[in-house]
């Protein structure tokens, strides 16, 4: 049962432009959302998170937006850099610690 969905398997952007990665969820009980980045042969690395009581959280070039009514969140990377090329996973907490992941979006940032 796919409670967290990333419908775009891949995204390609030019260096310096904005990257927008999207994520939808179906379970209204989710109350904490995270983005992870994964390089080949490495484990996922925590990037940024947001609580359901907020609609925006920023950390440097990374901003996460949460739209609870639409059950949608997005990750904005500005400006995008070639080193940002990786697979990005959206995740959501259910029952505090039972984390559910999307299938991932492969971001390619072209120089």
């Amino acid at each position, binding site marked *: 049962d796919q409670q*967290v969905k990333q419908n775009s398997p891949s995204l390609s952007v030019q260096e310096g432009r904005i990257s927008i990665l999207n994520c939808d969820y179906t379970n209204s009980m989710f109350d904490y959302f995270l983005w992870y980045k994964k390089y080949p*042969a490495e*484990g996922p*690395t925590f990037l940024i998170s947001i609580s359901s009581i907020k609609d925006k959280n920023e950390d440097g070039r990374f901003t996460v937006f949460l739209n609870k009514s639409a059950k949608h969140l997005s990750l904005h990377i500005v400006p995008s850099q070639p080193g940002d090329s990786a697979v990005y996973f959206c995740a959501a907490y259910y029952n505090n*610690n039972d984390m559910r992941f999307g299938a991932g979006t492969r971001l390619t940032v072209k120089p």
Partner: protein
Amino acid sequence: DAGVTQSPTHLIKTRGQQVTLRCSPKSGHDTVSWYQQALGQGPQFIFQYYEEEERQRGNFPDRFSGHQFPNYSSELNVNALLLGDSALYLCASSFWQGYQPQHFGDGTRLSIL
């Protein structure tokens, strides 16, 4: 400050065998979670350990079992291996209290022949 470490990095087994994977959490963390990641998919939650007890479990059969030791390290055991168990197995650690990001190891790549 050591992060999450997993061993071995790669493992090849045959159907019907049993396997044990090991994980040492990030220093200070008391909770360990295990995930299975099949090719092209996101990690799937297997179970979570805190205070040496299984606290939550995902939709995995009883062939998957685990253990947490007093030093917070953990093992994942899989019995009667099936071809479909071939995957990357990820361990993540965190603090039990509050909403905290989980920190992942680099995983164990398990191949079943």
